[in-house]
């Protein structure tokens, strides 16, 4: 099985995240970055599937996992981490023209790159995380399915593949659904699906020898005006740091903390 996992290099949520002053895009340089935590679940799902198809006598996995990212040069870190976890190869799409791309433009680049990977060997499964930890829109997987005309199996908290059919459990607000489609398909996974592995020492050493291809948008048959800020169909008018919340009243419970809590709720008419 030929699996492509799409991952994103994001500003670490534990640091002070911000914006580029000029163009209102996410500051991707002034803050430490990392492989989006939520994408580790997709990498893990891919590795599990690849090994599950392993041919026991030789120990050769029957699946091949290519990890792909679209992002600045530093995004190579995200690929490296996924290779250390066990992915077989990496593709890094990087191009100055891509900077500031919105979800639609990002999905355009990802789709073109997946098609190109598919030229070598047909792709059976495209895996993604449930959302990035910076923009958190959760729309790229659906857009990718739309562009590639693949069945969309998104927000999977369980995934099984049998006889060329993929089946997921999708836990919605009000119900849990089972959704099924024939491969090839696009699957996005939630953080409920597995427990991502840590890279082993062997994995870390081995990652250095794994092939990583770097492509620009011209390699994908795309033009600069199709991506980046210029192609965006939305405009940011302003960005304001949230005014620090007015320091609230904090009381220490000396036996009447519950009473003070009740009084506060009454004063605000919640009771």
């Amino acid at each position: 099985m030929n699996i492509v996992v799409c991952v994103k290099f994001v500003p670490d949520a534990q640091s002070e995240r911000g914006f580029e002053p000029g163009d209102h895009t996410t500051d991707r340089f002034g803050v430490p970055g990392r492989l989006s935590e939520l994408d580790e679940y997709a990498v893990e799902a891919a590795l599990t599937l690849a090994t599950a198809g392993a041919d026991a006598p030789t120990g050769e996995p029957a699946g091949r996992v290519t990890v792909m990212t679209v992002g600045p040069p530093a995004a190579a870190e995200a690929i490296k981490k996924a290779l250390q976890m066990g992915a077989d190869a990496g593709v890094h799409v990087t191009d100055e023209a891509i900077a500031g791309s919105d979800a639609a433009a990002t999905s355009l680049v990802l789709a073109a790159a997946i098609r190109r990977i598919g030229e070598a060997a047909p792709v059976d499964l495209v895996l993604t995380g449930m959302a990035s930890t910076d923009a958190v829109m959760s729309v790229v997987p659906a857009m990718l399915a739309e562009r590639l005309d693949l069945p969309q199996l998104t927000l999977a908290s369980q995934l099984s593949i049998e006889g060329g059919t993929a089946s997921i459990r999708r836990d919605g607000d009000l119900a849990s659904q089972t959704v099924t489609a024939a491969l090839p398909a696009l699957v996005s996974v939630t953080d409920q699906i597995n427990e991502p592995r840590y890279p082993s020492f062997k994995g870390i050493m081995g990652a250095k020898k794994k092939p990583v291809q770097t492509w620009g948008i011209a390699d994908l048959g795309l033009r600069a005006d199709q991506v980046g800020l210029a192609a965006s169909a939305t405009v940011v008018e302003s960005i304001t740091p949230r005014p620090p919340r007015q320091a609230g009243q904090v009381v220490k419970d000396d036996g009447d903390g519950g009473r003070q809590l009740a009084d506060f709720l009454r004063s605000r008419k919640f009771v």
Partner: protein
Amino acid sequence: MSEVLVLVDHVDGAVRKATTELLTIAARVGEPSAVYIGTGFQDAAATLARFGAVKAYRIESPDLTAHLVAPSAEALAQLVERTQPAAVLLASTADGKEIAARLALKIDSGLITDAVDVDADLVTTQSVFAGAYSVRARVSRGTPIITVKANSVTAQERPGECVDEQFTAVISPGAMSARITGTRPRQKSGRPDLSEAAIVVAGGRGTNGDFGPVEAFADTLGAAVGASRAAVDAGWYPHANQVGQTGKSVSPQLYVAVGISGAIQHRAGMQTSKTIVAVNKDADAPIFELADFGVVGDLFTVLPQATTLIEQARG
């Protein structure tokens, strides 16, 4: 005046609250038209009319409800083509956002997700980076497609006549490739739905697995119960109730965080709440930085005392 399409979020005809809020926003912009996919329209009609829908398009084909997301986006695209609306509004649910995403590509239009407000001129407000910034933005190409978080505005009744008509969408085979083969409704807790509740009481690590006081306090306030990731990962509460980056993002009128320290991932899911109250043993817990009111103390004594007093006051 232009139509504004509102995709109705409903369960077999029971219209969810977020939809009534969308109709209120639509009325600021133009004439609200509800788009109703599925069966049970007759049960929804009165609610839609009461909250200002002037028109309703009924799309009843099982092709839409038996498959995930893609056919709904296709139907909406065809309806946009026909009605040339000023905007399309959807609820910021998983389905709503994914339908919006596919629609945006189909009609080559800009998409804004998770708005917490939308002005009459379709400038949106979003809260980003766990609430650290407020972003004002607008769609600059095509028909604005906007998903709005529940509880962003107060739904206003605007009773009037709602004319409904059947709309027949043509669904392509490709859009029906992901089939919904089973649906299991969530167990009803008898409490309000977490994503729509006006009040949420959430418990975390500090509960030590005992959500009894949290639930009792929630019930006296008529609140939904939430849980932090730590509490869910420990198996103390179902994942469906998780508040935070990988759970639900809520913005109720009142959020009470109990025994929750307030990690960035949790704040991302609740920071837009109007009033925040925290109860925690640790005076240094970051949650107190957000709190309008906080009690440093043991939740197992503070909550029961508050619960009893509120119940007494009610008589």
